[in-house]
């Protein structure tokens, strides 16, 4: 399991971040004291560091530089300072991302996941095997027993999201927020059209009624 190290001095925020990342399938460790921060960070062998730059005693930017001297671990800086200068400095000191408080949690999660993937040189997961069908993310197709159908960008995103949430009811708003976070700003009608087309394509593959509509609640991928 991938390990995230949280370096944040606000105790409550730290706890909530721990819960959040644990719920999302990561192993989490965090620093509780900040007397020997740099050494502590280096001693914990993590896959990614979430670093607050306003720590008691030491400057986060300094920590960042020191870590970079002996490690290439991805670093996401979390801060409440939001000016371009600080951002630029942090990036120069070797941070990979700079996120300002209060942050969009989904974006934090997405950035974490993408950094992890890249740093581990893990081949980007380009296929989701859902058992009865396979979604190929790299060329945007859906495959079932040698039969292949192309999906549009939005259809692919919707199917990916539904597959990830399989068995759960997903509301239209949730799907839209997911699409918006990845910068497809679709409206309600477009979503309906996309859903219909996606269903038709699934039907062509003989996957009729795979996506079920729950009236007033949303959709569910069975």
């Amino acid at each position, binding site marked *: 399991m991938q390990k995230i190290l949280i370096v944040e001095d*606000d105790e*409550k*925020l730290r706890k*909530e*971040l721990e*819960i*959040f990342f644990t*719920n999302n399938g990561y192993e989490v460790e965090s620093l509780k004291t900040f007397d020997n921060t740099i050494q502590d960070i280096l001693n914990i062998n993590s896959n990614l560091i979430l670093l607050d730059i*306003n720590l008691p005693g030491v400057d986060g930017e300094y920590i960042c530089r020191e870590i970079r001297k002996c490690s290439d671990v991805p670093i996401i800086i979390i801060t*409440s*300072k*939001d*000016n*371009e*200068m600080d951002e*630029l400095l942090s990036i120069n000191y070797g941070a990979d991302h700079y996120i*300002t*408080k*209060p*942050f*969009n*949690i989904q*974006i934090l999660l997405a950035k974490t996941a993408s950094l992890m993937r890249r740093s581990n040189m893990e081949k980007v997961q380009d296929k989701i095997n859902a058992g009865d069908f396979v979604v190929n993310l790299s060329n945007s197709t859906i495959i079932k027993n040698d039969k292949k159908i192309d999906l549009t960008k939005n259809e692919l995103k919707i199917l990916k999201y539904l597959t990830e949430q399989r068995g759960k009811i997903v509301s239209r*708003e949730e799907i*839209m*927020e997911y699409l*918006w*976070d990845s*910068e497809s*700003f679709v*409206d*309600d*009608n477009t979503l309906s059209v996309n859903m219909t087309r996606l269903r038709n394509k699934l039907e062509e593959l003989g996957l009729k009624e795979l996506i079920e509509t729950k009236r007033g609640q949303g959709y569910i991928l069975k």
Partner: protein
Amino acid sequence: MSFRDFIKDKIWQILLIIFILMTIEIFLLAYSYGIFIKIYIPVAILSCYFIAILIEYIRKKIYYENIYNLLNKLEEKYLITELIQSPNFSEGEILREILKQVDKSMLENVNKYRYLQEDYKEYIEMWIHEIKIPIATSKMIIANNKNEITKSIDEELDKVEDYVEQALYYARSNTVDKDYYIKKSKLKDIVNECIKKNKSVLINEKISINLYDLDLCVNTDSKWIIFILNQIIQNSIKYRKKEIASEIEIYAEQRKENIVLYIKDNGIGIKEGEITRVFEKGFTGTNGRISNKKSTGIGLYLCKKLCDKLGIAIELNSVQDKGTEVKLIFPNSSYTDMK
């Protein structure tokens, strides 16, 4: 200083000279000097005296006129003391000395307030960084406990965040120093960021977003532009028309001299007579008063102020009942030209 005024100031001197001349003349008449001497002495004294005051007049006139000319050319008039030449008569020296002292004391006074304001701004910035931590924590708690109630709290927190942001930029807009950092930024990234920021409201209120032609770069501080754009988008959301499907259209146009970013909505628009006043501080207008829009009259005022600082022009057109269009005009200059 006219010659007449100058003579007026000298009136006692002149009267005394005339009195003395008259007494001399009386003595001269009493003795049997030649007619030539009787005329020459008073004429010589009188003309010498007049030449003397004429020279004095010309000297003073040149000096004061010089000061007036400088004063008219100067934009910041208090700097005049640095430019006044040392005069060659004592009255002018007194004036210069007084001006210098007055200037110095005024500068000290101004500086006192400048420091106070700077101090206050620093406090506000610090306070804002502090308040963002509990907001972030609350948002994390909400993310870990998703339900209808927390979702509603989340929406309120978004509002708190917006107000906090506004206070930060208000503090920044009032200082003379440059808080911004200019770099090349993609308009697309800026716009996307703003839309994502407002996604919950936009999705909930079923407002459609239409973005195109945004693959242009501008030299600016993207954080400031995001804030400005956010105010404009929030206005579009606030003043949408409930009866029809709302739409916000954002696109850019590359012109010869500049890049223009358009933000168009199909909302309730602004009354014709009020358009020129929308950038005034505290102006809420008819729209601000109707229903429960809770206008503060700060949003657009701040936009204008921040745009001025960044060297961006902001224009607003609107047709009542049809919609509003805001234009942000970015100068097309290169990085180095910006200074």
